[in-house]
């Protein structure tokens, strides 16, 4: 009986076995001795519960590990992106916002006076529509 109990307790996670193993064993012996409960039923119940604890513990540690790894990878990626942006001279957020505003306003025309060009409007900032290429 004691040997079977020891084997069943091995199914529990080590932390729980160390903390409560002796108590669980003592309580199981008490229930068999004083309550006349079936040893086989008690052992099966303990085994099922031990497996459940083991699975829950395993799942919890896996989730913690996955979150830690994902966070680390995300941090490294962000740092790399920041470094790459700084190296390429990307616009600052303020500059990017100004450019976006200009694009939303559409093409603007500017009249230039005092020369041949004064009779024509010059598109100073526009996004030409796609069309057939001129040669």
């Amino acid at each position, binding site marked *: 009986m004691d040997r079977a109990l020891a084997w069943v307790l091995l199914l529990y996670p080590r932390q729980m076995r160390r903390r*409560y193993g*002796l*108590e*669980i064993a*003592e309580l199981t012996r008490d229930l068999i001795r004083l309550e006349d409960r079936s040893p086989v039923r008690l052992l099966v119940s303990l085994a099922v519960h*031990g497996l459940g*604890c083991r699975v829950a513990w395993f799942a919890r540690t896996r989730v913690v590990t996955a979150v830690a790894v994902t966070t680390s990878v995300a941090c490294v990626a962000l740092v790399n992106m920041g470094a790459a942006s700084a190296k390429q001279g990307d616009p600052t957020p303020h500059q990017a916002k100004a450019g976006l505003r200009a694009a939303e306003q559409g093409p603007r025309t500017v009249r230039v006076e005092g020369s041949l060009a004064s009779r024509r409007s010059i598109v100073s900032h526009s996004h030409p529509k796609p069309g057939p290429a001129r040669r």
Partner: protein
Amino acid sequence: MHLPERSVLVLTSLAGGDKHGYALIKDVEAFSGVVLSPGTLYGALARLEEDGFVKRLDADDRRYPYRLTPAGRAALAERLAESARIASLGLRRIALAE
């Protein structure tokens, strides 16, 4: 905080005084008719101890008694008040429907 049913049973038993595993199982069975297995009992105790709701006392002849902490008492009171409110509402509605 959500307390599972078996944790409520264990806390309710400990509200009546310190008890070790065997006394807890007998008391819970006496007042609720629920027969806890050793695994279930110690699973609940482990969780409650981790949450700071119960405290393990020094061993008494290879048995460790457990004691309800003030935090455990507060959590139990809150949970039982909620249960009482739901029970009261349910009973009122049943009475109205009859």
